[in-house]
């Protein structure tokens, strides 16, 4: 399990190791063809800031070589905003006193049809954590309802046991996204004071359980803003390297969501509409991270959601990103059934999928809707 490797590292030492990197370390990292986690430290360090353009050029070339001039498109479909966890940064947090909603199968199909109309073949099913009402049985029903309509079905829900993942895979699940939020054990506790999610190790070992279940793709990431992004993303890279070596038949993708405000009328008084980032990450730094990830790993998919602004997303197309969502709603029923229900966070880019596809085309890239087929998971 990853925990054993993780426990060998001390947050403060890793952070200092990153901050200590020099221009010479960055130049060495840039000149290598295969980069390791020490090189990655240099590339995400403040010392790499003057080398951003060079990193961007390299990232652009490496990404095109592996992935071509294409951007994959996917869309989230929120199943439920019921949640038993308290997460300080999330609109679905248990203590956010707002009407909750879980889609029925009929409502789910209505949403599915709206998404299909937009052209999507890849859907990401999302929910809060409410194991009684939105547990494995519910997910099985949801997967059965959607699987014939999409070429690729991903899920971003609470961590589950290995046998549960095996069941969901039999019902058409291809990919699972599970973000650690932060690899800082103590801060993780502060942000997840209540609910099953407060178990740091159970979450940390979720990709192991997915790998053992033989899942096709796992998405990793941290929520940027909770802690020092450089240290958190280094641990993400460590996690990725461990997983690639252990579960070598599985594909991986990385995300780097930055904290966004959410809605709510009676949110906890000390943090209305979410929390302020503890550590800010500028646009320049996010680009630095995207390029550093690509320079570390030529094969990993890098995904960018509608949390980011139109200008940022337009430029990220050529810098290392391989997948994007568009036209997203972050509330259950958000497309048709109940557009006004509680959303998880506010999106920044509200352009339609057609507009995003056109933006991608204008840059000489192809917007790819289908890059999987259920038949391949025999």
């Amino acid at each position: 399990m990853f925990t054993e490797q993780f426990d060998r590292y001390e947050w403060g030492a890793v952070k200092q190791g990153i901050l200590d990197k020099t221009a010479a370390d960055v130049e060495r990292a840039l000149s290598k063809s295969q980069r390791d986690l020490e090189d990655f430290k240099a590339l995400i360090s403040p010392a790499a800031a003057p080398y951003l353009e060079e990193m961007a050029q390299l990232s652009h070339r490496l990404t095109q070589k592996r992935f071509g001039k294409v951007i994959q498109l996917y869309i989230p479909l929120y199943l439920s905003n019921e949640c038993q966890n308290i997460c300080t940064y999330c609109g679905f947090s248990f203590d956010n006193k707002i009407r909750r909603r879980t889609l029925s199968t009929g409502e789910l199909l209505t949403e599915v049809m709206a998404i299909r109309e937009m052209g999507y073949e890849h859907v990401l099913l999302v929910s809060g954590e409410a194991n009684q009402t939105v547990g494995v049985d519910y997910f099985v029903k949801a997967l059965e309802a959607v699987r014939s309509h999409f070429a690729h079905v991903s899920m971003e829900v609470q961590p589950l046991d290995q046998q549960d993942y095996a069941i969901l895979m039999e019902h058409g699940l291809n990919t699972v996204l599970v973000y650690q939020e932060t690899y800082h054990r103590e801060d993780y506790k502060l942000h997840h004071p209540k609910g099953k999610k407060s178990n740091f190790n159970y979450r940390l070992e979720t990709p192991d359980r997915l790998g053992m279940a033989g899942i096709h793709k796992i998405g990793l990431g941290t929520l940027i803003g909770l802690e020092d992004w450089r240290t958190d993303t280094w641990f993400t890279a460590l996690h990725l390297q461990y997983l690639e070596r252990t579960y070598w038949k599985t594909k991986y993708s990385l995300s780097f969501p930055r904290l966004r405000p959410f809605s709510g009328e009676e949110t906890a008084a000390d943090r209305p509409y979410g929390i302020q980032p503890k550590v800010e990450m500028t646009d320049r730094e996010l680009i630095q991270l995207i390029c550093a990830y690509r320079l570390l790993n030529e094969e990993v998919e890098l995904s960018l959601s509608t949390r980011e602004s139109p200008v940022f997303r337009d430029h990220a197309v050529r810098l290392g990103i391989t997948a994007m969502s568009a036209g997203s709603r972050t509330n259950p029923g958000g497309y048709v059934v109940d557009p006004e229900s509680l959303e998880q966070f506010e999106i920044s880019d509200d352009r339609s999928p057609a507009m995003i596809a056109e933006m991608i085309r204008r840059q000489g890239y192809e917007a790819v809707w289908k890059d999987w087929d259920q038949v391949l998971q025999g």
Partner: protein
Amino acid sequence: MLTIADKTFHSRLFTGTGKFGSSVLMEEAIVASGSELVTVALRRVEVQSQDDNILYHLRHPHLHLLPNTSGVRNAREAVFAAELAREALGTNWLKLEIHPDPKWLLPDPIETLAAAEELVKRGFVILPYIHADPVLCKRLEEVGVAAVMPLGAPIGSNKGLKTFDFLEIIIAQSKVPVVVDAGIGAPSDAAKAMEMGADAVLVNTAIATSADPVKMAKAFKLAVESGRMAFEARLAMTSSDRAVASSPLTAFLD
């Protein structure tokens, strides 16, 4: 002219359909390449739809489709995908690729051999993507594949003929056509493969991701023709093939 199974090809350059910036550009590049056999990933095709975008742009009478099983991880999945490809695309030709490793996309020899045997029995024309392993090529030949497709270097790496010495062995002993697939990064790599006697090459990334895919497709066309012509003309011996003794071993006979 190259014959594989029931088809004859004027062009020894096979191409792919992935990684292009647009389907229009893909079509123009493939036409410019002169290629008559184009591989298409089943995962990218809208098999249920009558107007799939990729297939629409491949509707030229001289173009034959070679569906591939990219994405499958074992023989069972490959056989399943093959049946779907035959039904959906109306061809029994198949580029059999089983790479359980999504990072380097290196082929699994054990699963590939098992799948090839089963698919040949089911009436498919099988072109397996494999490592440049001469023994595996003979084993595949024995189960009835129509050609073998050993790699020059990992898919999409553009590193050229890293497996040169093993390709030489494969070409020397193969009874079925040898198509060098994967890793060919420049027209000179393609020419080199043809000069050494490969029957054809398959090129995708090097064309699709170049700054001018149409021009690059033409460059590959010329390189493949040139390399083949050189092979047929028989290359002159290089000086390193001949030992020139400075202290003759046979001088004592004089």
